[in-house]
């Protein structure tokens, strides 16, 4: 067994530099690597490119990096609930590449699995396809999309072990597995770091080979964006 544990978030983020490209898991505020984002804010790393489905809200998640103008470029699919984001984008302060959500996930997967490019129907005939190769297969038109390249993937899992094996919970899974192994270095923060041998090998979502560093996050706020309930 190859050990991947690091002591804390500081050690987990060693080697990050200004100008790097980061992948960050999560959908909305669900399943985001909270502790790592806070550390990126603390380190004040600059001019970063973020590949993340969502840009957080004004005061939580990636919104924290946005507010401090640490982000040079965002590659996302949806940015609807962040006013500061919209402002920075429309004013041109920040570069933005909008990518269809399925294409975003698949470009991560492709990076992880050594597929340099693939064809998808998403975005054909739209702005997204501009400058890209398109091609017909079986009478339908497709766009060629390429794998992402990134320096670090930052993901959050529910449980993990010393070998780097990860298990996710509920819809906090989302983009996190797709980003594991998709960058040069993958850093996973987990709610619970369990002893090796505790996780059923049949239930592991991401084998440790895709994870270089793992640590248990100090605390999780897990903020809810839209609390919707029904009466009993």
């Amino acid at each position, binding site marked *: 067994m190859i050990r991947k544990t690091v002591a804390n978030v500081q050690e987990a983020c060693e080697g990050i530099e200004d100008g790097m490209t980061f992948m960050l898991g999560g*959908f*909305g*505020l*669900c*399943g985001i690597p909270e502790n790592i984002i806070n550390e990126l804010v603390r380190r004040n790393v600059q001019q970063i490119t973020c590949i993340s*489905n969502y840009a957080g809200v004004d005061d939580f998640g990636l919104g924290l990096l946005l507010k401090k103008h640490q982000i040079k470029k965002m590659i*996302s*699919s*949806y*940015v*609807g*609930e962040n006013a500061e984001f*919209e402002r920075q*984008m*429309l004013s041109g302060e920040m570069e*933005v590449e*909008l990518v*269809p*959500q*399925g*294409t*975003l*996930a*698949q470009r*991560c*997967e492709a990076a992880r699995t050594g597929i340099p490019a693939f064809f*998808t*129907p*998403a*975005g*054909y*005939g*739209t*702005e*997204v396809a501009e400058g890209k190769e398109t091609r017909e297969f079986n009478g339908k038109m497709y766009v060629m999309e390429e794998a992402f390249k990134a320096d670090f993937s930052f993901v959050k899992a*529910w449980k993990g072990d010393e070998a780097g094996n990860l298990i*996710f*919970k*509920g*819809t*906090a*899974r*989302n*983009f*996190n*597995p*797709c980003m594991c192994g998709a960058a040069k270095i993958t850093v996973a923060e987990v709610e619970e770091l369990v002893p090796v041998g505790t996780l059923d090998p049949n239930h592991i*979502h991401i084998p440790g080979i895709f994870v270089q560093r793992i640590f248990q996050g100090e605390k999780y706020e*897990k*903020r*809810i*964006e*839209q*609390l*919707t*309930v*029904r*009466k*009993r």
Partner: protein
Amino acid sequence: MSLTKEQIAQRIAREVKDGYYVNLGIGIPTLVANYVRDDIEVEFQSENGILGMGPFPYEGEEDPDLINAGKQTITALPGASFFDSAMSFGMIRGQHVDLTILGAMEVAQNGDIANWKIPGKMVKGMGGAMDLVASAENIIVAMIHTNRAGESKLLKRCTLPLTGVKCVKKIVTNLAVLEIKDEKFHLLERAPGVSIEEIQKATEGDLVIEGEIPEMKF
């Protein structure tokens, strides 16, 4: 009387058939789940990674790790499954989802749809919409027939950046149910008390009216 958002959802719910896997977009489409007949087997997919999505949780039972694509807290029904975003869009692109219901800012008579961007003014992003419209065989658009200025949103050609081309088959608005065929809007049903003339006036695109156009009943 034009339909309320709830009634639009109610009307769309009649299009949901036994054995359908359904993806519901944000907004009016989300309401559709409330009106699906309970004697048929249907499962709702949310593209953030759940199949078998249930209603909102009871107060105090909400789980921050369990949300839908609109970031609302939800529940999982028996038989549900969770998966990652790549698998979720594999379902969508692979045409395993039987019906997609989503909103639109504009629809054109050739089936083009625009719903993610107003240049220089508003950019929400396409989210999963481009994958959905490019892949789904069966798309229903839920929308208000006209914008706040009273201008038609059912057009000869879309003016906003497109989300997908030639993909919309059916539209349910506050005024009517329409089908897109041979690059024209075909009127199928009208809202209770809404005249064909009113619909005609609110529709910029070519509108085909053939035979008797029944009123929707609720």
